[in-house]
């Protein structure tokens, strides 16, 4: 009886441990902290660091976009929160925006991030009610970033010099 109990316990333990190993190799955590974050995601209890998110928002409103992005990256290390990802993409847009030309690298980074935000949002629709922003949906931001990375004859239009950053 006792042997059977040990056998069943061993079987369950082996399956659980093997699953953990497969999961580790599938998620490829880079540190113990990431292991903890991935565990929280798997358990469905992952939450962003609200304090760091607010710090990022304050920096964003002061036009310190790079610092804001760093704060938000720290607030959402697993890149699982659509709202935070939206703000990171917005910071890329605002920093990369130029009256004459846009920063391609930042716009591409922004595009990747906003695509991530859209994929994370329920039904793929993300609306952020922030009166300080001029674009409130991820779709609008995505369009703006896409237009910035595309090359067209419209880039030579002198009227473009009078456009405003959103």
């Amino acid at each position, binding site marked *: 009886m*006792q*042997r*059977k109990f*040990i*056998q*069943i*316990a*061993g*079987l369950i*333990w*082996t*399956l659980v*441990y*093997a699953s953990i*190993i497969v999961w*580790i*190799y599938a998620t*490829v*955590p*880079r*540190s113990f902290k990431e292991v903890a974050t991935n565990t929280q995601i798997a358990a469905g209890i992952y939450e962003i660091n609200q304090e760091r998110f607010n710090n990022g928002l304050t920096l964003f409103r002061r036009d310190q976009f790079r610092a804001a992005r760093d704060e938000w990256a720290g607030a959402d290390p697993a890149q699982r929160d659509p709202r935070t990802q939206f703000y990171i993409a917005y910071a890329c847009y605002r920093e990369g925006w130029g009256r004459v030309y846009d920063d391609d690298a930042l716009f591409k980074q922004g595009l990747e991030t906003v695509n991530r935000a859209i994929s994370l949002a329920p039904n793929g629709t993300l609306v952020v009610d922030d009166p300080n922003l001029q674009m409130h949906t991820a779709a609008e931001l995505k369009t703006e970033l896409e237009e910035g990375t595309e090359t067209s004859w419209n880039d030579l239009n002198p009227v473009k010099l009078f456009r405003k950053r959103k």
Partner: protein
Amino acid sequence: MKNYANRNQALLHFIVLPTILLTVGLLGGLRIDAQTGKFIFIAPPLVTLVLAILLGSLFVRAGAIDLHRWLDIEQPTLTNVSHLLTLLALFFASAQAFNSVLPETGLLHWMFSFFFLWTLWTNQFSAFDARRLLKSLIVLFATAFVLKHLVVAGLNAPEGGWIRKLASTLLQGIAIDVPAFAPITGYVSFFALALYVLGLLLLTPVPVRPDSSAVNNLAVREDALAELDQSAE
């Protein structure tokens, strides 16, 4: 007294052994980045799976695992499932033990792979017993460990030293494009290999059945006698 022995045997067989083998599976692919100190998990390359199959075949041929007794139709399903999981854990532990001592990329990766393949293939046709096989494997893994984690890693060491000078001389003219890892990677690999050898030591050719050690011994003796008869003929 006998109860304790049975219980401990069961614990060793059904919990400790799979845990050891799975831990090898976990640590065998772990590297630590030299610059950032972050984890890098490298899944076993295809060649290590081939090597693990060859090694598994060697275990069976050398009698280190009696497959018919590990998976027996007359055993309860639970026992068979449990044994199957242990054998699978052994397979992945073997693959990860190879992964641990194989250089990750470049010419050296293929050279090491070729030498492992050559050794295991030629061993398939040699007369081995379980003890000899274990000794041979310890030497094989120890050599690969020294070459990878001391000689090749010595080439990437910033402070240099005699290992670097020796390795530079030995490998002069060969392009070494192996990624540099933190020295702790060597310790992880050493621990993984030590656990693997411990797992092999704990692995019995015939799984011990409850209250039937005498019967098992007789069964093994019968096999040995049959082999002796065959060799005498």
